[in-house]
């Protein structure tokens, strides 16, 4: 009787995950290998033409998304690491206050935050409008609807997801290890490079994972902050699915995107062990 307990506990969630995660993704894989349209129906042809066509048609947006996601992730790492470092080692008893302040934006809806960011960057908004009024900026100066605005929005929206895992990893570093390094006459810089940095790498990996995937696939920043030249792959999938109803093409693009991202994730997961990534993701 006791032997079956874990199975009974796991069963409902298993069913949920199987029916609504595994089956749909398998179904999508099969749809991506069909031809046809919504009215005449789709036939399973196992032809990969959807993939080659979709990649040929949307390679610009796919590459752009990976570049935007990649650049945003690097910026987040550079901006976020010092913050995580300071909070973990120097904030003392105010650690939780600083973490709380970093998490403040999450009390505002993602969509609304992005739109407020757009308010702030608007051509005649409180920031640029005022500066233009003072003559500091030229009249035709604008940030909205540019690459800078989209990447800036991605960095803004996902930065806390980079800081938190790095903070968790740094927090676990035993201060005695650092003292030992100083005792052995290492300088501040080499202590950081050879002791602290390697110990924080699991956090860095988790942070990269938690920011790169959603940033690359995000449609909102491009839609709200970008112009026609900033369309990302997320916008394409939405349009193909919801406007054009071209399910085979849309499935093929989604799958290509997921394949590209999953390859990256698996390399990380292999290097770390899934347990670690999940643990870091949980805190």
């Amino acid at each position, binding site marked *: 009787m006791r032997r079956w307990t874990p199975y009974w506990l796991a069963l409902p969630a298993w069913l949920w*995950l199987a029916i609504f995660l595994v089956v749909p993704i398998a179904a*999508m894989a099969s749809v991506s290998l069909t031809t046809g349209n919504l009215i005449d129906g789709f036939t399973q042809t196992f032809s990969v033409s959807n993939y080659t066509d979709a990649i040929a048609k949307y390679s610009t947006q796919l590459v752009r998304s990976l570049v935007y996601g990649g650049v945003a992730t690097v910026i987040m790492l550079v901006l976020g690491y010092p913050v995580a470092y300071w909070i973990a080692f120097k904030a003392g008893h105010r650690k939780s206050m600083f973490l709380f302040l970093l998490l403040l934006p999450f009390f505002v809806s993602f969509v609304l935050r992005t739109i407020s960011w757009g308010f702030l960057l608007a051509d005649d908004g409180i920031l640029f409008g005022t500066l233009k009024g003072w003559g500091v900026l030229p009249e035709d100066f604008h940030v909205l609807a540019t690459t800078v605005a989209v990447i800036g929005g991605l960095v803004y929206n996902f930065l806390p997801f980079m800081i938190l895992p790095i903070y968790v990893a740094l927090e676990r570093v035993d201060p005695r290890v650092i003292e030992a390094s100083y005792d052995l006459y290492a300088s501040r810089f080499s202590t950081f490079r050879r002791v602290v940095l390697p110990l924080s790498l699991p956090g860095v990996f988790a942070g990269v994972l938690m920011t790169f995937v959603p940033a690359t696939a995000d449609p909102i920043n491009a839609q709200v902050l970008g112009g026609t030249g900033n369309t990302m792959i997320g916008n394409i999938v939405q349009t193909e699915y919801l406007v054009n109803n071209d399910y085979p093409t849309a499935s093929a693009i989604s799958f290509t*995107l997921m394949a590209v991202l999953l390859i990256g994730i698996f390399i990380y997961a292999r290097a770390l062990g899934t347990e670690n990534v999940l*643990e870091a993701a949980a805190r």
Partner: protein
Amino acid sequence: MRGKLGDRALYVYTWLIILWLASPIAVMILFGFNDKQSKSNTSWQGFTFKWYQQLFAIDGLTDALVNSLIIAVVSTILATVLGTLLGLAVGRYRFRGKGVTDFLIFAAISTPELVMGASLLSLFVSANAPRGHITIIIAHTLFSLAFVVVTVRARVVGLDPSLEEAARDLGAGTFTTFRLVTLPSIMPGVAAGAMLAFALSIDDYVVTSFVNGSEQTFPLWIVGAVKVGIPPQVNVMGTLIFGIGVLLAVANAISARRKTTH
């Protein structure tokens, strides 16, 4: 001395990042008080309370907010129950299929929202299921569930099994042991998971945009309104949600501190 200077610089830098992260919130709150005359709400035109008085004047927006709240509550309950049970299973027991289960949890967390939404839509279309409240709740439960599992498991792993043994030695049955010993000790993990599930649900745009049919939620309504101009009521609702969330979090932190000091 150089070290001290570096620390000072990092301290200032951390504050700058925090201010940067908070600046759009300040803008959101401020423009909820903007006495705007034209359609666009990007320039400051004077102070007013009228959007607070006319908070529910836009029917579509109010409906969307109510929908969001209902969906968040129902999917949080479902995800918390399913996720807590699975969290207990993977945190406590060794069983055949644990590896597959771990992988499923990992997959549920790391699948891009876009792919999750698109594949769910494929399923609902091929099953001829009408899209609406129920499909949104199914989707939200799906992406919240794994996060509940992870937070509950972290708590279960740290649990002392001798406590439950003691309860059983004292004659408590399986259910009584669970209710009086196991559940209270994993409760912080369950509560954290539930809060996370609620936050994820009420905030979701991407997955919902695929499975909503003609049903509107708060984030979907806002994105739909971007082109025609966001009414200030959205800022007011955002401000109120922000205020309530922060108050609850602070109250929670204070009560947790009280418990540890006494």
